[in-house]
């Protein structure tokens, strides 16, 4: 399972590094972010575990680790902010240049 996460991460990395379309680069970033989130969730997972809620009359033997879940929630929020920024940049870039192709968006050189 961890291995699959790593593969997903590499797919995202490939997408960011090799694709020429801005939207595809953004999707690549999204894929990488989900790969990392999935990795965190897997870290906290126990087979047959249950939610770690403290109650008076039952004893909890096998529970999942709650910390990665809290972390993933925060990471999703950060990812949302990042996506909003990047997508609005992409919209503005399309307005100015009329294209999504990064090989044509090259006014800065040197």
């Amino acid at each position, binding site marked *: 399972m961890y291995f699959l996460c790593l593969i997903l*991460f590499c797919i995202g*990395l490939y997408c*960011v590094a090799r694709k020429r379309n*801005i939207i595809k*680069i953004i999707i690549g*970033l999204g894929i*990488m*972010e989900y790969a*990392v989130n999935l*990795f*965190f969730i897997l*870290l906290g997972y126990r087979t047959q575990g249950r939610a770690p809620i403290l109650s008076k009359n039952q004893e909890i033997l096998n529970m999942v680790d709650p*910390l*990665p879940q809290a*972390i993933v929630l*925060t*990471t999703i929020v*950060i990812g949302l*902010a*990042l996506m909003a*920024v*990047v997508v609005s*940049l*992409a919209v*503005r*870039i399309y307005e*100015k*240049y009329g294209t999504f192709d990064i090989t044509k*968006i*090259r*006014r*800065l050189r*040197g």
Partner: protein
Amino acid sequence: MKFIPFFVIIPLAAAFLIALLGKWIRRFPEILSTLIAFVLLALSLNTIKPVIRFGTLVYKMGGWPQPLGISLVIDGLSIFVLVLINLIAFLTLLYAFGYIKKFTEVWKFYSLFMLMLAGLNGVVVSADFFNFYIFLEVASIAAYCLVAFGIAAEDLEAAFKYAVMGSLASLFILLGIGIIYSYASSLNMADVALILADKPNVILIGFVSVLFLVGFSLKAALVPFHAWLPDAHSSAPTPVSAMLSGVVIKVLGVYTLARIFFNVLGVSNKLLFVLMILGILSMVIGAILAIIQNDTKRMFAYSSISQIGYIVFALGIGTPLAILGALFHLFNHAVFKSLLFLNAGAIEEASGTRQLSKLGGLNVKLPVTGWTSLVGAMSISGIPPLGGFWSKFIIIFAAVQAGYISFAIIAVIVSIITLAYYLKFQTFAFWGKPMVNFGLVKDITFSMKLATVILALICIFSGLLLCPGLKDFLYSAANVLSSPLNYKFSALLAP
């Protein structure tokens, strides 16, 4: 130590207030944010003394005991960087007073700037990995927006490049944090350091080191990862480029690199060697690319890469003297590079162009800008009485002492190239024959002059940080890095 969270709370609240009220009340964003930056500067200067006396100050959020709860820690290194951040932020905001009028929707600029300041302060004070990551992202996202603030086509392109590279770096760092958590089951930095020292795992540490190295080198723009920096730093509004070049790449790149590698993961000889090679590469390539530039801001951006190379090279040498030199150079570079960027902005404001070939003879019209940038240029190229000389001297001396004589010679040669391109800047912009449209050049406003003059004075006198009486400030910062065990125990045991 009750006041530590205020380093984050105050700018965060200011950002909120500015976003709420800034649109309706005239001059409110400018005055509030400059005031806030001044308060933060005073607070951080005031913290120097207790830090030097007690070593480490800890604030436990919600009163939870240390390895479990979230804690904020200030030690010698943190306070050193905090003073630097708030000093440069205050002076750039002072400068922005006169500069920012040409933009519309000024309150958005100040709100984002305060968010970035909160993020930077947060990175420095947080003592656990996850908060560290969150503040890193807060600072970076605010920085992406600020680079695109002018919304010209070039600004957007640069901001997009910066955003993609920056978030790639953040994801690498987050993956590294995940792997560390899976091994150590703890996120507190001091606790993780103790666990890793107890049961070392070479393969895991190696893998995590590579992830962190890629992430932080992207943020610090070391040479194979530098492509975004010249675009972002030359397209941003001037106060932002001064802040980005002076503080952001250092806090998000160099400080984090030093803190995590030297204090938490522990350094090996291989890692130090990699750092040294990265530093030398950035030094040489940055300087060579800087000398062929015609755009002032772009030249300064490449020069930033080159100077960051010096700092990382000195960290890579790894002896206590070299670390002292690295931190001292970090301070000096923040001061003179923001001075030079502010002056480049002043030239653009006054004459309407950034192309060196179109400028000339400005010393008559802009005497303050001319003389202060002369001071900055002399300091960055290491002319003796100024601050830049002492830090470069310490770095080169430490390199020779540690036996890397060929690298020391390269560092000296790069310093000469630096002098060459700053002389090029001075001759083309301030000396020589007057430019076309010379009559149209107008003088800059008072706040811009004041900020650059203060920075130039700090440049001249920063060599005094090595004097007895003031040297504790620098030495306590260097001690944190050169004796890593110190951090682990003092951060956990401090009351």
